[in-house]
């Protein structure tokens, strides 16, 4: 088999690349795919934390490149899902420890054994980005409805379009806050899509559950009640080629608004 290599990138830091990677990876594995995630953020690794695998790492991607271990030895299996693996970044080295060629080579080898190879890209547009993109043929650009994140995403899209190996890229809008959009205080999903003129693959609502799930080292897709988790599971299904409608986040808030209105009316009447 030849697996699909998807790089998850954003340009700006802190928009949720690693969270997206952990959740999409977990959701794809839950759906029965063999998935490996590669953390290419050398020196600033975090994907292991989000998956709760930080204590299981023996070898890293640098050990593989410098031939201290075999590629298979460096793959850390997920606690719950045997279909899910992590190739961790080295924490003690910098971006120069792995080259574009070496990363490409690792991706090619992993394609034989996995359905999906998700590459977690570091922030920025320097060598770390170039390395992460080197082996991929698809990209997911993560952004939030904030000006700086959208601007950086536009830069990244420009760079991706210049790369021949990247056959398609899609936009994932994270941390959407329907309340703020409704009150016209935040750019809407439609605004961002129009400005970047890119195809959308996911809309993830802001969810405080993300913080607790990160603290527990348990991706939020495993929480069946969470709205963000549902949104991530939908993204995974879209990646697998299924046609899943986007969550209607506005309806959700209008229900809350209705309830609020109802109660405020009640209180008003009592007076």
């Amino acid at each position, binding site marked *: 088999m030849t697996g699909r290599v998807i790089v998850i990138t954003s340009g700006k830091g802190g928009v949720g690349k690693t969270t997206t990677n952990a959740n999409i990876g977990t959701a794809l594995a839950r759906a029965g795919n063999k998935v490996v995630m590669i953390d290419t953020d050398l020196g600033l690794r975090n994907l292991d934390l989000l998956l709760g695998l930080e204590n299981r790492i023996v070898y890293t991607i640098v050990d593989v490149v410098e031939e201290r271990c075999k590629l298979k030895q460096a793959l850390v299996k997920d606690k719950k899902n045997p279909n899910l693996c992590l190739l961790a970044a080295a924490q003690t080295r910098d971006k120069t420890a792995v080259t574009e060629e070496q990363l490409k080579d690792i991706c090619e080898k992993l394609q034989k054994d996995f359905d999906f190879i998700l590459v977690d890209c570091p922030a920025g547009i320097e060598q770390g980005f170039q390395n992460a993109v080197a082996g991929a043929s698809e990209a997911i650009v993560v952004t939030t409805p904030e*000006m700086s994140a*959208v*601007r950086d995403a*536009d*830069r990244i899209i*420009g760079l991706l379009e210049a790369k021949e190996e990247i056959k398609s890229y899609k936009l994932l809008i994270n941390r959407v806050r329907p309340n703020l*959009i409704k009150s*016209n*205080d*935040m*750019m*809407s999903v439609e*605004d961002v899509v129009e*400005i970047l*003129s890119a195809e959308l693959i996911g809309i993830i609502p802001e969810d405080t559950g993300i913080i607790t799930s990160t603290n527990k080292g348990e991706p939020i897709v495993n929480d069946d009640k969470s709205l963000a988790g549902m949104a991530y599971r939908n993204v995974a299904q879209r990646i697998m080629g299924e046609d899943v409608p986007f969550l209607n986040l506005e309806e959700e808030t209008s229900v809350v608004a209705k309830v609020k209105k109802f109660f405020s009316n009640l209180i008003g009447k009592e*007076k």
Partner: protein
Amino acid sequence: MSENILKELCNRLLSLFKQTETKEENAKDVACNRLRVVLMQDRTNLTPELLQRMRKELVELLSKYVEMDKDALELNFDQEGDQMALMLSIPVIRAKDEEEIEKALAKADEKEAEEDDASDEEIGEREEANEAEDDEETSEENDETEEDNSEEVTEEEPEIVEAEEEEKPKKKEDKE
């Protein structure tokens, strides 16, 4: 009780008006518009210096024909779909009459001629020396000038200037 209700009603009405007043300039629209402008600049690869130069040159060109408020010049990029447009907005102070326009044009022509003369003088000396050879090889050399240029670039800087300007007089000769 009824006073309270009246007060609240008044407040609500007031807040309604406030909302409608501020609606035009909400944070979302401001963000969208600022982003559009900034992205256009990002996508053109024009540095602030280049943009400044473009403005200057545009002002120079246009002030030959109309008198305008140079400081109020607005230069923006706009996008509709895949098409990018350059939007230039300059308040016109006064239309120039024919005489003034002719004067400005004549002045510009003079300036151009001066610049040409200056470059011709530089080449003049060299041409005299090479005249005999040039006559024989004009057709061949024209084909080779590009290659020659690239070779000379790597050697010495002063020669580049000469090599680039060499092309101009020759084209004139050809036309004649």
